Protein backbone atom coordinates (compact mmCIF):
# COMPACT_ATOMS: atom_id res chain seq x y z
CA UNK A 1 0.00 0.00 0.00
CA UNK A 2 1.34 3.44 -0.90
CA UNK A 3 1.70 6.21 1.68
CA UNK A 4 -1.12 8.13 -0.01
CA UNK A 5 -3.38 5.10 0.04
CA UNK A 6 -2.62 4.49 3.72
CA UNK A 7 -3.41 8.08 4.49
CA UNK A 8 -6.87 7.78 2.92
CA UNK A 9 -7.59 4.19 3.99
CA UNK A 10 -10.92 3.90 5.79
CA UNK A 11 -11.68 1.02 8.17
CA UNK A 12 -14.12 -1.55 6.80
CA UNK A 13 -17.55 -0.60 8.17
CA UNK A 14 -18.99 -3.11 10.65
CA UNK A 15 -21.99 -5.18 9.57
CA UNK A 16 -25.07 -3.94 11.45
CA UNK A 17 -27.92 -6.35 12.02
CA UNK A 18 -30.54 -3.59 12.35
CA UNK A 19 -29.79 -2.46 8.80
CA UNK A 20 -29.99 -6.01 7.46
CA UNK A 21 -33.30 -6.63 9.22
CA UNK A 22 -34.65 -3.30 7.92
CA UNK A 23 -33.96 -4.38 4.32
CA UNK A 24 -35.46 -7.83 4.95
CA UNK A 25 -38.60 -6.22 6.42
CA UNK A 26 -38.82 -3.78 3.49
CA UNK A 27 -38.69 -6.67 0.99
CA UNK A 28 -41.15 -8.82 2.92
CA UNK A 29 -43.61 -5.90 3.00
CA UNK A 30 -43.09 -5.01 -0.65
CA UNK A 31 -43.27 -8.61 -1.87
CA UNK A 32 -46.32 -9.44 0.22
CA UNK A 33 -48.17 -6.63 -1.61
CA UNK A 34 -47.08 -7.80 -5.05
CA UNK A 35 -49.31 -10.56 -6.49
CA UNK A 36 -46.49 -11.57 -8.83
CA UNK A 37 -44.30 -12.53 -5.89
CA UNK A 38 -47.13 -14.55 -4.29
CA UNK A 39 -47.49 -16.44 -7.55
CA UNK A 40 -43.77 -17.17 -7.83
CA UNK A 41 -43.49 -18.17 -4.17
CA UNK A 42 -46.70 -20.08 -3.51
CA UNK A 43 -48.41 -20.99 -6.77
CA UNK A 44 -45.51 -21.99 -9.00
CA UNK A 45 -44.06 -24.62 -6.61
CA UNK A 46 -47.51 -26.22 -6.25
CA UNK A 47 -48.08 -26.16 -10.03
CA UNK A 48 -44.65 -27.66 -10.68
CA UNK A 49 -45.16 -30.33 -8.01
CA UNK A 50 -48.52 -31.29 -9.56
CA UNK A 51 -47.13 -31.22 -13.09
CA UNK A 52 -44.02 -33.31 -12.58
CA UNK A 53 -45.59 -35.74 -10.10
CA UNK A 54 -48.41 -36.41 -12.54
CA UNK A 55 -45.97 -36.95 -15.41
CA UNK A 56 -44.17 -39.45 -13.19
CA UNK A 57 -47.41 -41.26 -12.38
CA UNK A 58 -48.49 -41.33 -16.04
CA UNK A 59 -45.27 -42.48 -17.67
CA UNK A 60 -43.06 -43.85 -14.90
CA UNK A 61 -42.97 -47.59 -14.49
CA UNK A 62 -42.29 -47.41 -10.75
CA UNK A 63 -42.88 -45.02 -7.84
CA UNK A 64 -39.19 -44.22 -8.11
CA UNK A 65 -39.89 -42.14 -11.26
CA UNK A 66 -42.29 -39.90 -9.35
CA UNK A 67 -39.77 -39.58 -6.54
CA UNK A 68 -36.97 -38.56 -8.95
CA UNK A 69 -39.16 -35.97 -10.66
CA UNK A 70 -40.40 -34.56 -7.34
CA UNK A 71 -36.92 -34.28 -5.84
CA UNK A 72 -35.65 -32.73 -9.08
CA UNK A 73 -38.25 -29.98 -9.10
CA UNK A 74 -37.93 -29.48 -5.34
CA UNK A 75 -34.21 -28.86 -5.69
CA UNK A 76 -34.64 -26.66 -8.73
CA UNK A 77 -36.98 -24.42 -6.74
CA UNK A 78 -34.11 -23.85 -4.29
CA UNK A 79 -32.04 -22.24 -7.06
CA UNK A 80 -35.09 -20.53 -8.50
CA UNK A 81 -36.08 -18.83 -5.22
CA UNK A 82 -32.51 -17.80 -4.32
CA UNK A 83 -31.98 -16.30 -7.74
CA UNK A 84 -35.32 -14.51 -7.75
CA UNK A 85 -34.80 -13.11 -4.24
CA UNK A 86 -31.45 -11.65 -5.27
CA UNK A 87 -32.21 -10.46 -8.77
CA UNK A 88 -35.84 -9.39 -8.38
CA UNK A 89 -35.03 -7.95 -4.95
CA UNK A 90 -32.50 -5.60 -6.51
CA UNK A 91 -34.71 -4.97 -9.54
CA UNK A 92 -37.43 -3.89 -7.09
CA UNK A 93 -35.09 -1.04 -6.05
CA UNK A 94 -34.49 -0.18 -9.69
CA UNK A 95 -38.20 -0.16 -10.55
CA UNK A 96 -38.88 1.99 -7.45
CA UNK A 97 -35.96 4.27 -8.41
CA UNK A 98 -34.72 3.66 -4.89
CA UNK A 99 -31.05 2.99 -5.65
CA UNK A 100 -29.86 6.55 -4.96
CA UNK A 101 -32.00 6.68 -1.80
CA UNK A 102 -30.22 3.56 -0.53
CA UNK A 103 -26.81 4.79 -1.64
CA UNK A 104 -27.21 7.89 0.50
CA UNK A 105 -27.70 5.90 3.71
CA UNK A 106 -25.14 4.02 5.84
CA UNK A 107 -26.32 0.71 4.33
CA UNK A 108 -23.33 -1.18 2.92
CA UNK A 109 -23.32 -3.38 -0.14
CA UNK A 110 -22.55 -6.43 2.05
CA UNK A 111 -25.48 -5.72 4.37
CA UNK A 112 -27.81 -5.32 1.42
CA UNK A 113 -26.57 -8.57 -0.12
CA UNK A 114 -26.97 -10.45 3.17
CA UNK A 115 -30.53 -9.18 3.48
CA UNK A 116 -31.41 -10.47 0.02
CA UNK A 117 -29.71 -13.77 0.82
CA UNK A 118 -31.82 -14.19 3.97
CA UNK A 119 -34.97 -13.40 1.99
CA UNK A 120 -33.96 -15.98 -0.62
CA UNK A 121 -33.22 -18.60 2.04
CA UNK A 122 -36.67 -18.21 3.56
CA UNK A 123 -38.31 -18.27 0.12
CA UNK A 124 -36.42 -21.46 -0.72
CA UNK A 125 -37.58 -23.15 2.51
CA UNK A 126 -41.22 -22.19 1.86
CA UNK A 127 -40.99 -23.39 -1.71
CA UNK A 128 -39.39 -26.72 -0.74
CA UNK A 129 -42.04 -27.27 1.92
CA UNK A 130 -44.83 -26.68 -0.58
CA UNK A 131 -43.40 -29.10 -3.16
CA UNK A 132 -42.85 -31.66 -0.40
CA UNK A 133 -46.39 -31.26 0.97
CA UNK A 134 -47.99 -31.71 -2.46
CA UNK A 135 -45.83 -34.78 -3.18
CA UNK A 136 -46.48 -36.36 0.20
CA UNK A 137 -50.12 -35.37 0.53
CA UNK A 138 -51.39 -36.01 -2.99
CA UNK A 139 -48.99 -38.59 -4.41
CA UNK A 140 -47.81 -40.41 -1.28
CA UNK A 141 -44.21 -39.75 -2.25
CA UNK A 142 -41.61 -39.06 0.42
CA UNK A 143 -39.21 -36.49 -1.07
CA UNK A 144 -36.77 -37.04 1.79
CA UNK A 145 -35.98 -40.53 0.46
CA UNK A 146 -32.56 -39.31 -0.66
CA UNK A 147 -31.66 -38.83 3.01
CA UNK A 148 -29.05 -36.34 4.00
CA UNK A 149 -27.79 -36.15 0.40
CA UNK A 150 -30.91 -34.08 -0.22
CA UNK A 151 -29.92 -31.62 2.53
CA UNK A 152 -26.35 -31.34 1.21
CA UNK A 153 -27.70 -30.93 -2.32
CA UNK A 154 -30.14 -28.22 -1.26
CA UNK A 155 -27.40 -26.33 0.61
CA UNK A 156 -25.09 -26.52 -2.42
CA UNK A 157 -27.85 -25.39 -4.76
CA UNK A 158 -28.48 -22.38 -2.51
CA UNK A 159 -24.85 -21.41 -3.05
CA UNK A 160 -25.22 -21.85 -6.79
CA UNK A 161 -28.53 -19.95 -6.85
CA UNK A 162 -26.84 -17.09 -5.04
CA UNK A 163 -24.07 -17.09 -7.64
CA UNK A 164 -26.68 -16.66 -10.39
CA UNK A 165 -28.32 -13.85 -8.38
CA UNK A 166 -24.96 -12.06 -8.10
CA UNK A 167 -24.45 -12.37 -11.85
CA UNK A 168 -27.85 -10.80 -12.49
CA UNK A 169 -27.29 -8.00 -9.94
CA UNK A 170 -23.96 -7.20 -11.63
CA UNK A 171 -25.66 -7.02 -15.02
CA UNK A 172 -28.50 -4.87 -13.65
CA UNK A 173 -25.93 -2.42 -12.26
CA UNK A 174 -24.66 -1.92 -15.80
CA UNK A 175 -27.74 -2.32 -17.97
CA UNK A 176 -30.53 -1.32 -15.58
CA UNK A 177 -33.92 -2.97 -15.77
CA UNK A 178 -33.29 -4.26 -19.30
CA UNK A 179 -31.17 -6.95 -17.60
CA UNK A 180 -34.33 -8.37 -16.01
CA UNK A 181 -34.39 -11.09 -18.65
CA UNK A 182 -31.30 -12.65 -17.07
CA UNK A 183 -33.12 -13.17 -13.74
CA UNK A 184 -35.33 -15.92 -15.18
CA UNK A 185 -33.58 -16.48 -18.52
CA UNK A 186 -30.45 -17.89 -16.88
CA UNK A 187 -32.54 -20.46 -15.04
CA UNK A 188 -34.51 -21.37 -18.14
CA UNK A 189 -31.20 -22.11 -19.88
CA UNK A 190 -29.87 -24.08 -16.91
CA UNK A 191 -32.99 -26.19 -16.48
CA UNK A 192 -32.54 -28.51 -19.50
CA UNK A 193 -28.73 -28.48 -19.36
CA UNK A 194 -28.18 -29.43 -15.74
CA UNK A 195 -29.89 -32.83 -15.73
CA UNK A 196 -32.53 -32.05 -13.17
CA UNK A 197 -34.70 -35.02 -14.15
CA UNK A 198 -32.35 -37.13 -16.26
CA UNK A 199 -28.68 -38.05 -16.52
CA UNK A 200 -26.52 -35.88 -18.80
CA UNK A 201 -26.27 -38.84 -21.20
CA UNK A 202 -29.92 -38.26 -22.10
CA UNK A 203 -28.99 -34.93 -23.71
CA UNK A 204 -27.86 -34.70 -27.35
CA UNK A 205 -24.16 -35.52 -27.63
CA UNK A 206 -23.15 -31.96 -28.45
CA UNK A 207 -24.68 -30.67 -25.19
CA UNK A 208 -23.33 -33.34 -22.87
CA UNK A 209 -19.94 -31.66 -22.29
CA UNK A 210 -21.79 -28.47 -21.36
CA UNK A 211 -23.91 -30.36 -18.84
CA UNK A 212 -20.82 -31.99 -17.36
CA UNK A 213 -19.21 -28.67 -16.41
CA UNK A 214 -22.31 -27.24 -14.72
CA UNK A 215 -21.98 -27.88 -10.96
CA UNK A 216 -25.73 -28.48 -10.68
CA UNK A 217 -25.48 -31.58 -12.83
CA UNK A 218 -23.27 -33.27 -10.23
CA UNK A 219 -25.68 -32.51 -7.41
CA UNK A 220 -28.70 -33.78 -9.30
CA UNK A 221 -26.76 -36.91 -10.31
CA UNK A 222 -25.75 -37.63 -6.71
CA UNK A 223 -29.28 -37.08 -5.41
CA UNK A 224 -30.82 -39.30 -8.10
CA UNK A 225 -28.33 -42.06 -7.40
CA UNK A 226 -29.07 -41.89 -3.71
CA UNK A 227 -32.77 -42.28 -4.48
CA UNK A 228 -32.15 -45.24 -6.78
CA UNK A 229 -29.82 -47.37 -4.68
CA UNK A 230 -29.07 -45.44 -1.51
CA UNK A 231 -25.42 -44.97 -2.47
CA UNK A 232 -23.57 -41.73 -1.87
CA UNK A 233 -21.53 -40.34 -4.75
CA UNK A 234 -18.97 -38.37 -2.79
CA UNK A 235 -17.07 -37.29 -5.87
CA UNK A 236 -20.16 -35.76 -7.48
CA UNK A 237 -21.19 -34.02 -4.25
CA UNK A 238 -17.67 -32.67 -3.79
CA UNK A 239 -17.37 -31.47 -7.38
CA UNK A 240 -20.82 -29.88 -7.22
CA UNK A 241 -20.01 -28.07 -3.97
CA UNK A 242 -16.57 -26.95 -5.17
CA UNK A 243 -18.00 -25.75 -8.50
CA UNK A 244 -20.77 -23.83 -6.74
CA UNK A 245 -18.27 -22.17 -4.40
CA UNK A 246 -16.14 -21.16 -7.39
CA UNK A 247 -19.25 -19.73 -9.08
CA UNK A 248 -20.24 -17.71 -5.99
CA UNK A 249 -16.67 -16.41 -5.63
CA UNK A 250 -16.76 -15.34 -9.29
CA UNK A 251 -20.16 -13.76 -8.70
CA UNK A 252 -18.82 -11.74 -5.75
CA UNK A 253 -15.82 -10.64 -7.79
CA UNK A 254 -18.14 -9.63 -10.65
CA UNK A 255 -20.44 -7.56 -8.41
CA UNK A 256 -17.46 -5.82 -6.76
CA UNK A 257 -16.04 -5.01 -10.19
CA UNK A 258 -19.41 -3.76 -11.40
CA UNK A 259 -19.85 -1.59 -8.29
CA UNK A 260 -16.45 -0.01 -8.95
CA UNK A 261 -17.42 0.63 -12.60
CA UNK A 262 -20.84 1.87 -11.38
CA UNK A 263 -19.04 4.67 -9.52
CA UNK A 264 -16.41 5.29 -12.17
CA UNK A 265 -18.83 5.45 -15.11
CA UNK A 266 -21.56 7.37 -13.27
CA UNK A 267 -24.16 4.65 -13.89
CA UNK A 268 -26.14 5.96 -10.90
CA UNK A 269 -27.66 8.56 -13.22
CA UNK A 270 -29.49 5.72 -15.01
CA UNK A 271 -31.24 4.87 -11.77
CA UNK A 272 -32.32 8.36 -10.77
Amino acid sequence: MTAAAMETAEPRPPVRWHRISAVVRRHVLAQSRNPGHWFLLLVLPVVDALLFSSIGVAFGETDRAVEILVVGILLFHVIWQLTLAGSLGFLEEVWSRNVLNLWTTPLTESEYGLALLITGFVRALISMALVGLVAAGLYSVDPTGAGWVLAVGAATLMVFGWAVALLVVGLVLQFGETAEVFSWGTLVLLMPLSGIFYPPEALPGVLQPVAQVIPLTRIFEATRQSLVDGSIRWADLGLGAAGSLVCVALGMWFVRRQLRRFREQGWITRFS
Partner: protein
Amino acid sequence: MHGEQPGASVVAATGVRKRFGDVQAVDGIDLAVAPGERVGIVGPNGAGKTTLLLMLLGAIDPDEGRVELMGRHLPDGRSAAMEDVGFAAGYLPLPDRLKVHEALRFFADLHDRPDPAGVVEQVIDELDIGHLRDKSCMSLSSGQATLVGIAKAVMHQPRLVVLDEPTASLDPDIALRVRDALARLNDEHRTALLLTSHDMREVEALTERVVFLRDGRVLADGVPAEVVADAGHTTLEEMFLAEAIRMRGARL
Protein backbone atom coordinates in the same frame (compact mmCIF):
# COMPACT_ATOMS: atom_id res chain seq x y z
CA MET B 1 -12.21 28.77 -0.37
CA HIS B 2 -15.03 29.72 1.94
CA GLY B 3 -15.88 28.58 5.47
CA GLU B 4 -13.85 26.93 8.21
CA GLN B 5 -10.69 24.87 8.04
CA PRO B 6 -10.99 21.93 5.60
CA GLY B 7 -10.50 19.47 8.48
CA ALA B 8 -13.62 20.75 10.18
CA SER B 9 -15.72 20.79 7.02
CA VAL B 10 -18.70 18.52 6.59
CA VAL B 11 -17.80 18.37 2.89
CA ALA B 12 -14.34 18.93 1.46
CA ALA B 13 -13.69 18.37 -2.24
CA THR B 14 -10.25 19.12 -3.61
CA GLY B 15 -9.45 19.41 -7.29
CA VAL B 16 -12.24 17.08 -8.41
CA ARG B 17 -12.55 16.34 -12.10
CA LYS B 18 -14.92 14.07 -14.01
CA ARG B 19 -15.15 13.39 -17.71
CA PHE B 20 -17.85 11.39 -19.48
CA GLY B 21 -16.66 10.63 -23.01
CA ASP B 22 -16.11 13.98 -24.74
CA VAL B 23 -17.76 15.97 -21.98
CA GLN B 24 -15.72 17.40 -19.12
CA ALA B 25 -18.59 17.45 -16.61
CA VAL B 26 -16.56 18.73 -13.65
CA ASP B 27 -13.24 20.42 -14.21
CA GLY B 28 -11.17 20.96 -11.11
CA ILE B 29 -13.55 22.10 -8.38
CA ASP B 30 -12.54 22.84 -4.80
CA LEU B 31 -15.43 23.07 -2.39
CA ALA B 32 -15.63 23.03 1.39
CA VAL B 33 -18.83 23.33 3.39
CA ALA B 34 -18.53 24.23 7.07
CA PRO B 35 -20.83 22.89 9.80
CA GLY B 36 -24.06 24.86 9.82
CA GLU B 37 -23.30 26.58 6.52
CA ARG B 38 -26.08 26.94 3.93
CA VAL B 39 -24.70 26.59 0.43
CA GLY B 40 -26.46 26.61 -2.92
CA ILE B 41 -24.89 25.13 -6.05
CA VAL B 42 -26.39 26.77 -9.10
CA GLY B 43 -25.84 26.95 -12.81
CA PRO B 44 -27.74 26.14 -15.99
CA ASN B 45 -28.30 22.58 -17.18
CA GLY B 46 -24.99 21.00 -18.10
CA ALA B 47 -22.96 23.18 -15.73
CA GLY B 48 -21.96 20.12 -13.68
CA LYS B 49 -24.21 20.48 -10.60
CA THR B 50 -25.59 16.93 -10.50
CA THR B 51 -22.25 15.29 -11.25
CA LEU B 52 -20.61 17.35 -8.51
CA LEU B 53 -23.39 16.52 -6.05
CA LEU B 54 -23.19 12.79 -6.84
CA MET B 55 -19.41 12.89 -6.36
CA LEU B 56 -19.88 14.60 -2.99
CA LEU B 57 -22.25 11.74 -2.05
CA GLY B 58 -19.80 9.04 -3.16
CA ALA B 59 -22.09 7.79 -5.93
CA ILE B 60 -19.62 8.82 -8.64
CA ASP B 61 -15.85 8.54 -8.31
CA PRO B 62 -13.88 11.56 -9.49
CA ASP B 63 -11.23 10.93 -12.17
CA GLU B 64 -8.94 13.22 -10.19
CA GLY B 65 -9.06 14.89 -6.80
CA ARG B 66 -10.48 13.70 -3.53
CA VAL B 67 -13.70 14.04 -1.60
CA GLU B 68 -14.16 13.91 2.15
CA LEU B 69 -17.62 13.72 3.67
CA MET B 70 -17.86 14.16 7.44
CA GLY B 71 -14.09 13.79 7.51
CA ARG B 72 -14.34 10.37 5.82
CA HIS B 73 -12.58 9.74 2.57
CA LEU B 74 -14.89 8.55 -0.20
CA PRO B 75 -15.74 6.04 -1.48
CA ASP B 76 -14.48 3.76 1.34
CA GLY B 77 -15.84 5.93 4.15
CA ARG B 78 -19.31 6.30 2.62
CA SER B 79 -21.20 4.16 5.15
CA ALA B 80 -19.80 5.91 8.22
CA ALA B 81 -20.18 9.35 6.63
CA MET B 82 -23.83 8.74 5.69
CA GLU B 83 -24.79 8.33 9.36
CA ASP B 84 -24.72 12.13 9.48
CA VAL B 85 -26.04 12.93 6.01
CA GLY B 86 -29.59 13.28 4.74
CA PHE B 87 -30.46 13.40 1.06
CA ALA B 88 -33.60 14.21 -0.88
CA ALA B 89 -34.26 14.98 -4.52
CA GLY B 90 -37.46 16.31 -5.99
CA TYR B 91 -37.23 13.74 -8.77
CA LEU B 92 -36.77 10.68 -6.53
CA PRO B 93 -39.82 8.75 -5.34
CA LEU B 94 -39.86 6.60 -2.22
CA PRO B 95 -40.02 2.80 -2.38
CA ASP B 96 -43.08 1.35 -4.07
CA ARG B 97 -45.53 -0.79 -2.11
CA LEU B 98 -44.68 0.77 1.26
CA LYS B 99 -46.87 3.11 3.26
CA VAL B 100 -45.37 6.47 4.13
CA HIS B 101 -44.69 5.58 7.77
CA GLU B 102 -43.19 2.23 6.71
CA ALA B 103 -40.88 3.91 4.19
CA LEU B 104 -39.78 6.47 6.79
CA ARG B 105 -39.26 3.70 9.35
CA PHE B 106 -37.16 1.79 6.81
CA PHE B 107 -34.82 4.73 6.32
CA ALA B 108 -34.80 5.52 10.05
CA ASP B 109 -33.69 1.94 10.73
CA LEU B 110 -30.77 2.34 8.33
CA HIS B 111 -29.32 5.06 10.57
CA ASP B 112 -27.83 4.23 13.92
CA ARG B 113 -30.26 6.27 16.04
CA PRO B 114 -32.10 5.18 19.18
CA ASP B 115 -35.90 4.93 18.95
CA PRO B 116 -36.37 4.94 15.15
CA ALA B 117 -40.15 4.68 15.61
CA GLY B 118 -40.12 7.87 17.69
CA VAL B 119 -37.95 9.59 15.06
CA VAL B 120 -40.56 8.81 12.40
CA GLU B 121 -43.50 10.07 14.45
CA GLN B 122 -41.59 13.22 15.34
CA VAL B 123 -40.82 14.15 11.74
CA ILE B 124 -44.40 13.37 10.67
CA ASP B 125 -45.54 15.77 13.36
CA GLU B 126 -42.96 18.46 12.60
CA LEU B 127 -43.67 18.52 8.87
CA ASP B 128 -47.42 18.19 9.48
CA ILE B 129 -47.78 15.17 7.20
CA GLY B 130 -49.92 13.04 9.52
CA HIS B 131 -52.59 12.82 6.79
CA LEU B 132 -50.06 11.00 4.59
CA ARG B 133 -48.89 8.57 7.27
CA ASP B 134 -50.91 5.54 6.13
CA LYS B 135 -50.96 6.36 2.43
CA SER B 136 -49.06 4.19 -0.02
CA CYS B 137 -45.94 5.89 -1.38
CA MET B 138 -47.19 4.96 -4.85
CA SER B 139 -50.37 7.00 -4.39
CA LEU B 140 -48.70 10.27 -3.39
CA SER B 141 -48.78 13.31 -5.65
CA SER B 142 -45.35 14.52 -6.73
CA GLY B 143 -45.56 17.35 -4.20
CA GLN B 144 -46.50 14.98 -1.38
CA ALA B 145 -43.72 12.58 -2.38
CA THR B 146 -41.22 15.44 -2.29
CA LEU B 147 -42.41 16.42 1.16
CA VAL B 148 -42.03 12.86 2.46
CA GLY B 149 -38.61 12.68 0.78
CA ILE B 150 -37.55 15.76 2.73
CA ALA B 151 -38.90 14.17 5.92
CA LYS B 152 -36.69 11.17 5.14
CA ALA B 153 -33.68 13.43 4.68
CA VAL B 154 -34.03 15.39 7.92
CA MET B 155 -35.61 12.97 10.41
CA HIS B 156 -32.35 11.64 11.87
CA GLN B 157 -31.09 15.19 12.46
CA PRO B 158 -28.03 14.84 10.26
CA ARG B 159 -25.12 17.27 10.29
CA LEU B 160 -25.52 17.78 6.54
CA VAL B 161 -28.65 17.76 4.38
CA VAL B 162 -28.10 17.53 0.63
CA LEU B 163 -31.08 18.53 -1.48
CA ASP B 164 -31.33 18.29 -5.25
CA GLU B 165 -34.18 20.44 -6.58
CA PRO B 166 -35.97 20.07 -3.23
CA THR B 167 -39.12 22.08 -3.79
CA ALA B 168 -39.47 21.79 -7.57
CA SER B 169 -42.92 20.23 -7.49
CA LEU B 170 -44.33 21.78 -4.34
CA ASP B 171 -47.15 24.30 -4.07
CA PRO B 172 -45.83 27.67 -2.86
CA ASP B 173 -47.33 27.31 0.63
CA ILE B 174 -45.87 23.84 1.11
CA ALA B 175 -42.53 24.95 -0.31
CA LEU B 176 -42.55 27.71 2.28
CA ARG B 177 -43.24 25.16 5.04
CA VAL B 178 -40.32 23.05 3.81
CA ARG B 179 -38.02 26.07 3.74
CA ASP B 180 -39.08 26.95 7.28
CA ALA B 181 -38.39 23.39 8.46
CA LEU B 182 -34.95 23.43 6.86
CA ALA B 183 -34.15 26.83 8.35
CA ARG B 184 -35.25 25.56 11.78
CA LEU B 185 -33.09 22.46 11.43
CA ASN B 186 -30.18 24.67 10.48
CA ASP B 187 -30.77 27.02 13.42
CA GLU B 188 -31.44 24.44 16.12
CA HIS B 189 -28.98 21.70 15.17
CA ARG B 190 -26.40 23.59 13.15
CA THR B 191 -27.17 21.32 10.23
CA ALA B 192 -25.34 22.33 7.06
CA LEU B 193 -27.46 22.60 3.91
CA LEU B 194 -26.15 21.91 0.43
CA LEU B 195 -28.70 22.32 -2.29
CA THR B 196 -29.14 22.69 -5.99
CA SER B 197 -32.15 24.42 -7.43
CA HIS B 198 -33.37 26.15 -10.55
CA ASP B 199 -35.45 28.44 -8.37
CA MET B 200 -33.08 31.32 -7.69
CA ARG B 201 -35.43 32.96 -5.20
CA GLU B 202 -35.39 29.76 -3.21
CA VAL B 203 -31.60 29.70 -3.30
CA GLU B 204 -31.47 33.28 -2.08
CA ALA B 205 -33.99 32.52 0.67
CA LEU B 206 -32.31 29.36 1.92
CA THR B 207 -28.59 29.91 1.47
CA GLU B 208 -25.95 32.29 2.71
CA ARG B 209 -23.45 31.28 0.07
CA VAL B 210 -23.82 30.43 -3.57
CA VAL B 211 -21.42 28.49 -5.78
CA PHE B 212 -22.14 29.33 -9.42
CA LEU B 213 -20.92 26.73 -11.90
CA ARG B 214 -20.06 27.16 -15.55
CA ASP B 215 -18.81 24.31 -17.76
CA GLY B 216 -17.83 22.24 -14.73
CA ARG B 217 -15.86 25.04 -13.07
CA VAL B 218 -16.63 27.50 -10.30
CA LEU B 219 -17.56 30.79 -11.91
CA ALA B 220 -18.29 32.55 -8.64
CA ASP B 221 -18.40 31.61 -4.96
CA GLY B 222 -19.65 33.84 -2.17
CA VAL B 223 -22.57 35.63 -0.56
CA PRO B 224 -25.40 35.70 -3.13
CA ALA B 225 -25.71 39.49 -3.21
CA GLU B 226 -21.96 39.92 -3.74
CA VAL B 227 -21.79 37.22 -6.43
CA VAL B 228 -24.64 38.93 -8.28
CA ALA B 229 -23.13 42.40 -7.92
CA ASP B 230 -19.64 41.26 -9.00
CA ALA B 231 -21.15 39.74 -12.15
CA GLY B 232 -22.90 43.02 -12.94
CA HIS B 233 -26.43 41.79 -12.38
CA THR B 234 -29.18 42.85 -10.01
CA THR B 235 -30.60 39.47 -9.03
CA LEU B 236 -29.43 35.87 -8.98
CA GLU B 237 -32.23 34.95 -11.35
CA GLU B 238 -31.03 37.54 -13.87
CA MET B 239 -27.49 36.19 -13.59
CA PHE B 240 -28.77 32.62 -14.05
CA LEU B 241 -30.77 33.56 -17.15
CA ALA B 242 -27.83 35.43 -18.68
CA GLU B 243 -25.61 32.40 -18.12
CA ALA B 244 -28.21 30.01 -19.55
CA ILE B 245 -28.51 32.18 -22.68
CA ARG B 246 -24.72 32.32 -22.99
CA MET B 247 -24.46 28.53 -22.73
CA ARG B 248 -27.18 28.01 -25.31
CA GLY B 249 -25.41 30.43 -27.67
CA ALA B 250 -22.11 28.63 -27.14
CA ARG B 251 -23.73 25.28 -28.00
CA LEU B 252 -25.29 26.68 -31.20
